[in-house]
């Protein structure tokens, strides 16, 4: 099922890409335009993904657990943290956003318990802020908490 879903996804992507590439000016062989390579790539991708889709649909369904064990909760938790981070970063600023995301990851990965998880998450957030913002001078989103560290540094 996974393979089939992927094959359909790849095919849809290639159709959309080719449609986008077709709208660009391909020029002529003497003077190739911005759509020249996208058109070649689009056609190639469509043929290849079409072949892959055809192969996948002809094949019988793959056995269960063909790719080994899968801890779905851990993966989904890390992925959710990853995707949520950009939103949190610009709304809660660096230290709070980092604390929340790291704490959630530790909780999902079942480390030691709320106290240890909080301590590790706080340490990681503060240490990374100190290294990157205070040490390397990276401009990280800052609010009142980060201001305290800037003031402490002087």
């Amino acid at each position, binding site marked *: 099922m*996974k*393979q089939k879903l*992927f094959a359909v996804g790849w095919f849809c992507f290639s159709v959309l*890409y080719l449609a*986008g*590439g077709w709208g*660009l*000016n391909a020029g*002529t*062989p*003497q*003077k*190739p*335009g*911005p*759509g*020249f*390579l*996208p058109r070649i*790539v*689009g056609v*190639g*991708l469509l043929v*290849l*993904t079409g072949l*892959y889709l055809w*192969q996948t649909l002809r094949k019988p369904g793959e056995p269960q657990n063909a*790719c*080994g*064990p*899968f*801890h*779905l909760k*851990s*993966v989904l938790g*890390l*992925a959710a*943290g*990853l*995707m949520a*981070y*950009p939103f949190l*970063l*610009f709304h809660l600023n660096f230290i709070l956003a*980092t604390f929340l*995301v*790291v704490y959630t*990851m*530790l909780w999902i*990965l*079942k*480390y030691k318990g709320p106290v240890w998880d909080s301590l*590790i998450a706080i340490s*990681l957030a503060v240490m*990374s802020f100190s290294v*990157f913002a205070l040490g*390397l001078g*990276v*401009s*990280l989103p800052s609010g009142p908490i980060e201001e305290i560290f800037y003031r402490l540094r002087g």
Partner: protein
Amino acid sequence: MEMWPSLVHGFSVALQPMNLIYALAGCILGTVTGILPGIGPLGAMAILLSFTLYIDATGAMILFAGIYYGAMYGGSTTSILLNIPGENSSVITCIDGYQMTLRGRGGAALTVAAVGSFVAGTISIIGLMVAASLLGRAALQFGPPEFVAIAVCGFVLLMKLGEESLLKSAIMIFAGLALCTVGTDYLTGTLRFTLGVEGLIQGIEFLPVAIGLFGISEVLETASASLDAGRAKKMKFRELLPNREEWRRSTAPMLRGSVIGFLIGLIPGPAPMISTFVSYITEKKISKRPKEFGRGAIEGVAGPESANNAAVGGAYVPLLALGIPFTPAMAMVLGALLLHNITPGPNLIQEKPNLFWGVIASMYVANFMLLFLNLPMVNVFVNVLRTPRQILLPIIVMLSLVGVYSTSASALDLFILGICGILGFAIRRVGFKPAPLIIAMVIGPMLENSLRQSLLITGGDFAKVIFRPISLTLYAVAVGVIVLPWLWGRRSKPPVPKG
């Protein structure tokens, strides 16, 4: 610049205190990532890519060379002691290395692997010096049609020698080419596939894609599997010494493995891994005791371990001489150079001698460091396996996020990182490998520029683009690689019995 005086100059660069620190840091990081299953040198290089902005280009190259070499050394440690290949290039070492450990000769296997890696590293560096200089000089004669041919031939070899099916590799290469067409067309200023998103006008950045596909997807892969770590018994220094017979039987496989590894390293594809298989098969075929293979033959450790290290030196040749990365690790190295506005190519040796010879000299230094660092500290490095993954994984994710943010301060890049991480994990689960995509994404702009320039120069005559001595040879190689095995397969098929 003559080769030997240049190398001496290179040592004066490599032995500067800061560069020694980068080499040491690279060796330690590489060894640790080589030991930890699931977090490989590609992941480490991808994650550290953004941080190389804070050091000079030579330092960045030295750090990456240390990581790459260190990972090759580190991978063998867990393969031999625990039957856990830290790297896919050390899978083959498990076969005989672990059997030697069960027979109480694990220490000797570790020493032979380390010495073999050192010998191979040294031989491959000499090969790299000679080959890169010669190829670099020859490449000065190359024009855009030749670069198109190199890219096409490279893609075909990558598809054919990749770890996945031909069709899946081809899809990944075309997907990589598709990604690099996003953004502003450099010749006409036309916007392509930007979907109205302002952040995509400059194109999709290499950094978040590379970190996502290699760093984050490896983290997700590790999180999806068991988080239990292996335990190895403590190794005494005396146990590390091979006996005279073991030394005698290892010498020739080390030398053969070095040559095999270097030559395979020149070819696109997962060179370190392929070189170990070729070396193992070669040793088994020419051995007087083939039945010992699989039961703890020292040749089965010495050959492959030398080969995977030599392949590293070989892989640097096309990058330093032509500016074309043929392996994902070299794509990372190129990424680091591009971050410093350095485009490697035939002129690199003349224009940046400090960088070129400094990196080569630092490879010698890294090999020395690894030899004297890894064996005495084998017990320390094996303990790395005990680090709780539950702590390690969030740290790697945070380093990746902050690293990407620090280079662009863009929320879009953070989203691309996340999407590529999840996509990289998902495609691995259905048997795709991200390496061809990342290589295509790096080579793509060069291919497009060269193709359009070639057509402009020749007035749109494809025959003039293809029928040039070097180009035609490369296209013939590409066609041969696809057609010959197919023809061979048809001829050697047994006839189907009638009825």
